[in-house]
C-alpha cells in the first residue's frame, strides 16, 4: 500500500447538458519510483484524459490519484507536464521560459545566482544552451520540445508526465529526442508517464507498457513488461528477442484484440 503513484478506481465522465459520456472506467495502476510507464491505445481511448487526470488539469469523477499516499486533485509543479505542442510562451526567450518555472517553484528556496545556475544546468541537460536567447518562433519543433522538457525537469517533479511529446516531430528528430530522454532518465532516475501511439517508442523507452481498450468507457486492457537492460541502444535492440516479443505483444493487443473499428 505504499506505491509511489497509485491510480485507484478512477472513472471519468464528461457531462454536457443531459448527455453523459463515459470516457474512462475503473482504472487501477501503481507506478514505482524511477519507472518509465507508457500508455498506448488508439486515438480517442482517453489516454490524454488519463494524463490530465494525473496532472490534475481535469478532475476525476470517482476514484483517486495518490502520489506517495496523498490524494492529488489540483495541478502542481511536482507533476510537471511536457505538453504535446510544447506550450512555450512565445513572448519569452528559451531561457525566460525555463526561468518562469524555476523562479516560481524555487523563488523562495534558491538565491538568484542558484536559480540562474539551475536554469542553465537544465538547458544544458537538453543541449539547448546555445539557443537560450532565442524565442520559440525562431527554433525548430524538436528544439521547442527540448525546451519543454527542460522546463518540466527544472521544476524537479516527483513525476514527469509526457503527453505524446514527440508526436509532431519527424522520425529522425524523434529518435534523437528519445535518446535524450533515456540519457536524462539514466542520470536523474526520474519517474515518467508517457502517452504515445508509437509502438517502437513505447518498447524502447518504457519499463511497462499500459495498453488501453477502445473508448467509450475505456480501461486498462493489459500491461506488457519490457524486460530489457538499460542502457538500451536502438540498433542492438532490432534483433533482440525480448524486444521483438514485447513489440509483438503490443501490436497484437492493438490490432488483433482491440482493433479500432471506426478508423478507416
Amino acid at each position, binding site marked *: 500500500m505504499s506505491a509511489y503513484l497509485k491510480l485507484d478506481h478512477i472513472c471519468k465522465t464528461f457531462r454536457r447538458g443531459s448527455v453523459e459520456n463515459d470516457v474512462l472506467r475503473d482504472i487501477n495502476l501503481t507506478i514505482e519510483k524511477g519507472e518509465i510507464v507508457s500508455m498506448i491505445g488508439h486515438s480517442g481511448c482517453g489516454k490524454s484524459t488519463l494524463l490530465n487526470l494525473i*496532472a*490534475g*488539469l481535469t478532475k476525476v469523477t470517482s476514484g483517486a490519484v495518490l502520489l506517495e499516499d496523498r490524494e492529488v486533485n*489540483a*495541478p*502542481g*509543479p511536482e*507533476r*510537471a*507536464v511536457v*505538453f504535446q*505542442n510544447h*506550450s512555450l*510562451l*512565445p*513572448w*519569452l526567450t528559451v531561457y525566460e521560459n525555463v526561468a*518562469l*518555472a524555476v523562479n*516560481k*517553484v524555487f523563488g523562495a528556496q534558491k538565491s538568484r545566482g542558484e536559480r540562474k545556475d539551475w536554469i542553465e544546468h537544465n538547458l544544458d541537460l537538453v543541449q539547448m544552451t546555445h539557443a537560450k536567447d532565442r*524565442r520559440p*518562433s525562431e527554433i525548430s519543433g524538436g528544439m521547442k520540445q527540448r525546451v519543454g522538457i527542460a522546463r518540466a525537469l527544472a*521544476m524537479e517533479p516527483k513525476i514527469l508526465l509526457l503527453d505524446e511529446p514527440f508526436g509532431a516531430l519527424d522520425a529522425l528528430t524523434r529518435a534523437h529526442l528519445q535518446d535524450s530522454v533515456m540519457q536524462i532518465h539514466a542520470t536523474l532516475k526520474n519517474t515518467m508517464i508517457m502517452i504515445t501511439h508509437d509502438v517502437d517508442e513505447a518498447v524502447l523507452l518504457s519499463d511497462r507498457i499500459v495498453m488501453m481498450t477502445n473508448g467509450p468507457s475505456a480501461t486498462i486492457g493489459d500491461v506488457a513488461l519490457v524486460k530489457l537492460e538499460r542502457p538500451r541502444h536502438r540498433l542492438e535492440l532490432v534483433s533482440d528477442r525480448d524486444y521483438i516479443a514485447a513489440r509483438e505483444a503490443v501490436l497484437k493487443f492493438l490490432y488483433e484484440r482491440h482493433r479500432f473499428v471506426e478508423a478507416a
Partner: protein
Amino acid sequence: MSLSAVTSKSEDATPSPVKILPLNVARPGAGSRQFRRFGQALVNNFVPPIICAAILLLIWQIAFGRAGATLPAPTVVWKEASDLIIDPFFRNGPQDIGLGWRTLTSLQRVGIGFSLASAVGILVGAIVGQSIWAMRGLDPIFQILRTVPPLAWLPISLAAFRDSQPSAIFVIFITSIWPILINTAVGVRNIPQDYRNVAQVLRLNHFEFFWKIMMPSAAPYIFTGLRIGIGLAWLAIVAAEMLTGGVGIGFFIWDAWNSSRLPDIVVALFYIGAVGFVLDRIVGFIGHLVARGA
C-alpha cells in the same frame, strides 16, 4: 522593394567575364550605396503624398479662389492665418495664444481621460474575459452603451460634476473605454488553453497570471482596442470642448466660427488631423513593440 530590383539590375549589367572587379569596386562604394538607398526610400515615401497634397490644394484653390466663394481658398488661409501656422506657441494675451498651446490643453484632457479608460478598461476587460458569467451578463450592456455618441454623455456628466473640466474628461473616458474593454475581454477569452495549463501546473496566482500570461497573450487585442480608443477620444474631445468652452482646440473652432474667422478654422482642422494621426501612430508603434514576440 523596387530599390533592390534596381541594384540587382545594375549588378547584372556589369560584364560577366570580369568577376572579381565588381566585388572590389563594391566595397568602397558601400557607404554611398547605403546613402543612395536611404535617399531612394525617402523619395519613395514622401514624393507621392507631397504631389497628391499639391494637387488637392490646387483643386481647392480653383474651387474657392473666385470672388464671393463661401469658404476661404488656400491663399486666403495663408494670408489671414499665417501667424497661427508659423508660430504654434505664441502668447499675446489670455485668449490670444498659439494653436500649439490649445492643442496641448486638449491633449492633457485626452491624456487623463484615456489613461483612466485604459486602466479601468483593461482591468474590467480582463475580469469579464475570465468569467463566462460576467461575459454573458455584461456583454449586451456594454454593446448598448458602446453605441451611445460621445456628446450624449455630456449633459449627464455636466449635471454630475458641475464643472466643465471633469465633464470633458469623463466624456473622453466613457467614449474610449468600450473598445478597450471589449477587446481586452475578447483577447483574454482567446488565451490558448495550453498557456492556462502551464499557469496551472506552475500554480501561478491571479496576479502572476495577469502579468505573465494574460497581458502578453492578449496584447495584440488590447492594443487594437487602445488604438480605436485613442481615435475616439480625440474625436470626442473636440466635440466636448465646443460645448464646454475654456482653452482647447475644440473651443477655438467654435470661437472662430462665432467671430467668422474661417481661415483659422481651416488651420485648426489641420492641427486636429495631424495630432490624431500622430496619436494613432504612437499607440500603434507601442503595440508593435509589445506584441513583437507573440
